[in-house]
């Protein structure tokens, strides 16, 4: 009988190797970069804009006067910075874009998901994805040269029949380069992204529910109303808000089709308006140090605005997976 030797106990080590520790450290640091970059953007814009924000206070958002008065030796006599007019313009044109673009996008998504045949569907999806990759300057110049004449025609028509509604009234018959046209261009720009998000949401609708609806004798319309839309509601709203965020931050496309004038203009068909981004481009060239700081503060407002809108949108879209079932 040989006595078996029991081997000495080996300590099981769960401590990762040094190379792994290093790897995890590098990747984690890299992973934090988005946090760092967003933080830096906030910090630097706030740092530059703080002086102006402190002088203007809350009036920076509510005051609608942006002026620098100089005497003959080009010394600054007085300066006044208020963002209200551009804030109104930003919200106005983005709202028009969402009101026009989102219904078209959602209905297109319904068509692609539930009506189109396979071949047509693939071609159309390819085209819409391609449109999402178009640079904004393309939309802007196309909007200026091609869309504007026809959009003007529609604007006149709207004014003729709905002029009694204050929003569609104009003080002077000047329809070129109005917030309405800018809103249309922005609507066209957000259609691809809204369509693809809605489509993605619709395609996640549980198949058994769709088939259950059909088995109960539903038409396509009643199936969509009873199953698809309730399921995808959050996604649709989220997609719309994502589009809103895009539309708010757009610069070049708005600049080309909008007559950028510094005044509060609620009348969407009248050719005057602007948004924060176009203000920055417009004033940047001739601005002195102080005005540039004011522009930085304006950029900060825009940054925070889009961040909030995007954040809410992303929460709505990503929460979708959990509702239902």
């Amino acid at each position, binding site marked *: 009988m040989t006595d078996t030797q029991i081997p000495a106990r080996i300590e099981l080590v769960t401590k990762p190797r040094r190379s792994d520790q290093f790897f995890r450290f590098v990747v984690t640091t890299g992973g934090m970069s988005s946090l760092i970059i967003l933080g830096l953007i906030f910090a630097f814009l706030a740092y530059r804009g703080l002086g102006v924000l402190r002088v203007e206070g809350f009036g920076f958002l509510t005051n609608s006067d942006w002026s620098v008065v100089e005497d003959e030796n080009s010394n600054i006599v007085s300066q006044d910075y208020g963002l209200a007019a551009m804030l109104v313009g930003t919200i106005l044109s983005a709202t028009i874009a969402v009101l026009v673009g989102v219904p078209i996008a959602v209905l297109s998504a319904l*068509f692609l998901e539930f009506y189109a045949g396979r071949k047509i569907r693939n071609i159309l999806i390819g085209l819409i994805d391609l449109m999402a990759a178009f640079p904004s300057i393309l939309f802007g*110049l196309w909007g200026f040269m091609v869309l504007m004449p026809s959009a003007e025609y529609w604007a006149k028509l709207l004014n003729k029949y709905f002029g009694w509604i204050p929003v569609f009234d104009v003080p002077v018959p000047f329809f070129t380069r109005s917030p309405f046209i800018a809103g249309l261009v922005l609507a066209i720009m957000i259609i691809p992204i809204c369509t693809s998000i809605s489509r993605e949401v619709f395609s996640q609708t549980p198949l058994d529910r769709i088939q259950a609806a059909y088995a109960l004798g539903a038409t396509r319309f009643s199936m969509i109303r009873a199953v698809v839309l309730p399921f995808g509601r959050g996604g649709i709203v989220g997609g719309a808000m994502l589009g809103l965020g895009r539309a708010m*931050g757009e610069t070049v496309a708005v600049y080309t089709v909008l007559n950028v004038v510094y005044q509060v203009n609620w009348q969407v068909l009248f050719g005057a308006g602007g948004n924060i981004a176009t203000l920055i481009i417009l004033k940047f060239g001739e601005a002195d140090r102080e005005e540039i700081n004011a522009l930085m503060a304006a950029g900060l407002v825009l940054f925070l605005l889009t961040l909030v809108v995007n954040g809410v949108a992303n929460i709505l879209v990503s929460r979708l997976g959990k509702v239902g079932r």
Partner: protein
Amino acid sequence: MSTTTIKPGRPWEPTAKERSQKGLNLLIAVALSLVLLFVTGLNGKLGWVAAFFFSYVSVSFIAEYRRAGKPAAQDSLLTSISRFAIFLAIIPIVSILATVISKGWRGLHWGLFTQDMSEATVNSPIQEGGMLAAIVGTLIMVGLALLFTLPIAILTALYLTEIKGKFARPIRFLVQAMSGVPSIVAGLFILSSIVYPVTGERSGLMGALALSILMIPTVARTAEEVLLLIPNDLREAGLALGATQWRTVAMVVVPAVKSGLVTAIILGIARVIGETAPILLVSGGGDATNFNPVSGPMGSIPFYVWNAFLLGGSEESTQRTWAGLLVLLLWVLILFTIARYISSRSQKR
């Protein structure tokens, strides 16, 4: 005994009667739209499209209502409206492609790729000057932006899929939020953080930095998506062979998603190649060809288009604008086609 052969039928397909009914609806709708055009003040092609839409929707609604009642009518309403919606969504893209190609090709000539605008203005004859400065500038800036973006974006994607630390959810959220940062804000950020306090001069490098802020989220999200598609078995197999996590990622996971990463890069390039606003703010935008990214203003294709559009007003400048847009569009089309090709090929495998 005779055998009866049953011919296979296709009851779901529309019968001849239904088809003729549909054709009739269409004809009535066309007629009605022409009447509408005549009665109301609408005119032009667009007016006709609107009139046709209303008449088609109402005609098919009434026809379906008479045929099968309210549910069928509602169904046909949604069908025709959604068809019209996709039509509206597709018109702009077709119009954009057609306009840019038809107006742009006349401005194309070889000098476009061999000359720059240093000795020509936007209003000089189209044969003088070209886009060399713009193309060189775009290549340098996008290339540098890619260089900055790639490590950060891929590390972010790896953090989200491989490490899955406790910050994975907030980081994913922040990356998505970052993709919504307006391009002009990216320009302002570089301006306030580097150009004013440090260099004091606008240059191509600054442009590249601004572009990479816009590029990071696109590349990171696409890379994350392709990394998520890798089956976990592959990772486990690597670890089971005794590899460390670092080796598994470097030798198994990343090689497996190579083509996906290429797609991510291409989509990132397509995202920033047409960016105009940050270029206007931070790169200066010169007319002369400049190979040095750290000093001197640098042009780009969108800047060339922008200049020709804003400073011009003559026949030549318009031609320049469209030619520039056509070149830009071709870049986007090529990048998009390559990305599509790669992703469709990897799906087949």
